[in-house]
């Protein structure tokens, strides 16, 4: 397990002297809109900024994920990856400018994941200030096309094309401070699209209304009996349809996720939903299509894995109370490739997915110290002794 815990509270204090630079990075990157599939400007800024901050190497991979490398002392040790996704769930025409107050910052996309990206960008300077060097190269990757329909494409591509071994990885998310993600649920993200013909077919049971059809789909999914163990749940996340209050909706769309800690169960539920969709399509004489957007397999580190144990110790040393929960982020791709990895949150926040999302400034320094501690732990060799499986 990681031994040098005693230096971490001091890191947290020293990081406060870097507040201006860290906040500046968060503000400058966060002010650039980066909806999934349109992250180019944010990527360009990330690269320019890394160069400005005199990182050892800066490049993009074939998928345009921006990557900076802080060179390590050893040529033999595999690299450690630190990643944060660059995309946010907000369109370009939303005001992305942040408001800074005495203790908080607020604005669109801040908590998913502009804060994380800004902290990633600050790491080279943070390492310099804390006078830390590593044996491994530290690969700082701002991955694109991560959330929603992005389906983690950026990180998938990056790891697929990275042929050399990877020692371990830390995924940075804006919040919540204390999150300790070391396992991922199996997840199938899908969309159900309903299209009705403008004129009712003589054989149809009702006048066609896509919203009513989608409602029926929801009702039938809710009737499914899902076990408590293994865990499984269906999350209805998005819904849209129709044009005007007084017109029958001819199109509607439902977005949902099936999550389970047992992959086969998620697949079974998906099959059940497929049957529901087919049945309703036949019954209502409309077009109803179930489409898979993303599929992530369940994977985990054991709770007694040295990386998890070290992370818990790091958090406790810094006075952070860890809480565990599954994640469906970049973590799942690392774990599925047998690379020990964690997702950590930087600070406390509110209203994560609203345009007024906000973060607390002061706890951020502990959050960053925790990330630095976790990187140091991996560099000390804890994952070399206990690789996954």
């Amino acid at each position: 397990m990681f031994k040098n815990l005693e230096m971490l509270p001091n890191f947290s204090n020293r990081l406060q002297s870097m507040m201006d630079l860290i906040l500046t990075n968060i503000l400058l990157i966060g002010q650039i809109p980066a909806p999934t599939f349109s992250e180019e400007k944010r990527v360009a800024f990330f690269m320019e900024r890394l160069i400005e901050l005199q990182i050892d190497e800066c490049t993009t991979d074939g998928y345009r994920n921006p990557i900076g490398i802080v060179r390590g002392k050893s040529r033999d040790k595999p690299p450690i990856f630190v990643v944060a996704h660059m995309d946010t769930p907000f369109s370009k025409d939303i005001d992305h400018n942040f408001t800074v107050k005495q203790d908080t910052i607020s604005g669109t996309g801040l908590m998913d994941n502009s804060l994380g990206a800004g902290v990633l960008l600050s790491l080279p300077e943070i390492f310099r200030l804390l006078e830390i060097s590593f044996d491994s190269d530290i690969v700082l990757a701002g991955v694109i096309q991560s959330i929603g329909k992005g389906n983690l494409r950026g990180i998938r591509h990056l790891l697929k094309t990275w042929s050399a071994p990877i020692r371990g990885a830390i995924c940075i998310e804006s919040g919540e401070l204390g999150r300790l993600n070391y396992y991922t649920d199996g997840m199938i993200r899908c969309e159900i699209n309903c299209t009705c013909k403008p004129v009712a077919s003589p054989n149809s049971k009702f006048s066609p209304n896509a919203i009513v059809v989608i409602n029926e789909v929801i009702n039938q999914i809710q009737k499914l009996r899902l076990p408590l163990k293994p865990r499984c749940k269906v999350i209805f996340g998005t819904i849209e349809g129709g044009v005007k209050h007084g017109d029958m909706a001819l199109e509607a769309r439902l977005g949902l996720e099936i999550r389970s800690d047992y992959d086969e169960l998620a697949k079974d539920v998906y099959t059940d939903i497929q049957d529901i969709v087919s049945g309703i399509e036949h019954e209502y004489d409309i077009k109803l299509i179930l489409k898979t957007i993303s599929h992530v397999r369940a994977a985990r580190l054991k709770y007694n894995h040295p990386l998890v144990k070290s992370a818990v110790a790091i958090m406790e040393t810094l006075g952070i109370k860890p809480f565990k929960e599954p994640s469906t982020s970049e973590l799942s791709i690392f774990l599925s490739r047998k690379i020990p990895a964690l997702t950590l949150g930087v600070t406390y926040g509110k209203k994560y997915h609203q345009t007024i999302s906000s973060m607390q400034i002061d706890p951020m320094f502990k959050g960053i110290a925790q990330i630095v501690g976790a990187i140091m732990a991996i560099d000390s060799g804890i994952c070399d002794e206990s690789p996954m499986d």
Partner: protein
Amino acid sequence: MTAGYAMNHPWIRTNTFNYHDFGDLAALVDIKHRKGLTISLCLPTLNEEKTIAKEIVIFKSELMSRYPLLDEIVVIDSGSTDKTLEVARSYGADVFKADDILPSLEKYKGKGENLWKALYITQGDIIIYLDADIKNIHHRFVYGLLGPLLITDQIKYTKAFYDRPIASDTGKMRPTGGGRVTELVIRPLFSLFFPELTQIMQPLSGEYAGYREIFEKIPFPIGYGIETSMILDIYNQWGLDVIAQVDLERRIHRNQDTRALGKMSFAILKTFINRISAQGLIDTKGKMFDEMIQYSIVKDHIEPDIANLQGYERPPMIEIPEYQEKRNIF
């Protein structure tokens, strides 16, 4: 009479820059040191708690810690009732209430008053004035304006221009809509009397920088007329060639309603007319009023809304005895 000669004037080609031209901040710092200059940034405020901290944080990080271009950041406040002063102080700016500066003088409220008093408070050879309500603030706003002042010996005053999208209350961005007073008031006036000045893209932009030796020798209207007077007075005393304009690409600002713009236009017109009158270009025969009269419909009748805009101007700072004493001017 045609203004054709203005169109052929090379100023717009030789004295128009883009902030990209000055992205090498280390080089700017080097020139600053070589010339032995000090630089002050002044942020005039009135209830800017939402934007002031962001400006201070970014400028301190990028232009003080990383590249020591700025020697001081000074906030001069007109009497904010929100947390502007508290927030600005907590992020490390030097904060002053305008009323506390040169307290023996009569007190006025207005942006121009703050800028004028900044001349007394600040130390720099170059002073940069930025509005404190810029939502998309970036350090280019400062280094862009500084660039021409540092790399040339001739340019003494720089003025910003940019796209002006407007942030609406819903958080959505509208791409156009700014610059109405420029296009409806100032540009027609410049075209009528000083066609050369039409080459200045946004004469009313609130971001400009210049040498103290210029600013201290011109009067400052206390209110909205400050940008207009500054251009006219500098043009009149030193000519167009000491002025440059810099493209800062994009500035997001709060939209103002038409009535507020009406008052702004009144002050600008008054400043302008006073100056052309003093130059003998027109004769108002002393018949100008100080009240801007607008009308509102209240219930079922029309009521006048009268604003007294006297257009008081502070004299050149160099004429103020306290200033002379502070800066050892005899």
